[in-house]
């Protein structure tokens, strides 16, 4: 892709993902929020493709936009039986203004840090046969990911399986008829 097309696609994706993220917190109906979040996740997957992280992009669509959001939509529609809209009677009317001010402070501080902070340390850049672009060029994208996962993080990978099992057992215990 040429440089200009790349920059245009970046801005389209940036505007679309921020707009759909705003939709998540602005829609009154929780189903609309969930659908908007799915859109955000899909746009982020396209960002990952643009950055060359093909495996992460596909996993993002499968796990996040697929599995996790289906669970969300299921629970949202299950609990939507409550006719009262919880956002109608507002107990803390000043809360919104304070949250917007704090949010602007946060985004200002983060942007200031990003634009004025120290540049990326060139020494941290991977070199030689271990570098991502080398492995991707020689073997492919998923091989590069798998090599990094099982050479440096195999213990963390095993622990994630434990985390999932504990979460499943916890959900089972919580969901059981008491």
């Amino acid at each position, binding site marked *: 892709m040429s440089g200009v097309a790349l920059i245009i696609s970046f801005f389209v994706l940036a505007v679309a993902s*921020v707009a759909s993220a705003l939709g998540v*917190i602005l829609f009154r109906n929780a189903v609309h929020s969930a659908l908007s979040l799915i859109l955000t996740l899909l746009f982020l997957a396209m960002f990952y493709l643009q950055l*060359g992280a093909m495996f*992460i992009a596909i996993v993002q669509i499968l796990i996040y936009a697929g599995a996790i959001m289906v669970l969300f939509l299921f629970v949202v529609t299950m609990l939507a039986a409550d006719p009262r809209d919880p956002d109608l009677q507002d107990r803390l009317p000043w809360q919104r203004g304070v949250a917007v001010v*704090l949010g602007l402070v946060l985004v200002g501080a983060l942007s200031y840090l990003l634009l004025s902070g120290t540049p990326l340390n060139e020494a941290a850049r991977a070199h030689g046969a271990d570098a991502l672009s080398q492995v991707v060029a020689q073997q492919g994208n998923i091989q590069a990911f798998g090599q990094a996962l099982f050479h440096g993080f195999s213990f963390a990978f095993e622990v994630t399986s434990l985390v999932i099992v504990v979460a499943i057992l916890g959900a089972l215990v919580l969901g059981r008829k008491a």
Partner: protein
Amino acid sequence: MTTIPVSWYLIVSALLFTIGTIGVLVRRNPLIIFMSIELMLNAVNLAFVTLSSYLDSADGQVFVFLVLTVAAAEVVVGLAIIVSIFRTRRNIDVDEMNLLRG
């Protein structure tokens, strides 16, 4: 490799993180608070993938994979808690939840 400056991606990530934070502060439906937390996790994932691409190292992508697992576990347990609160109280407004006993 891309020609877009790394800070552009990181600023998009900062914007998404801020939107998630505001969502947690403002909304009172716990399901939407959960979605805002997912938004924050995804903003961090974008930063990880960006830095992984710019530093030419696959470690950032592995971190994304681990974040994804933790997010899935968090959603499962969190939604189970919300459902069980709804079953006992018929109401899931966070302002009215003041008991951990449910």
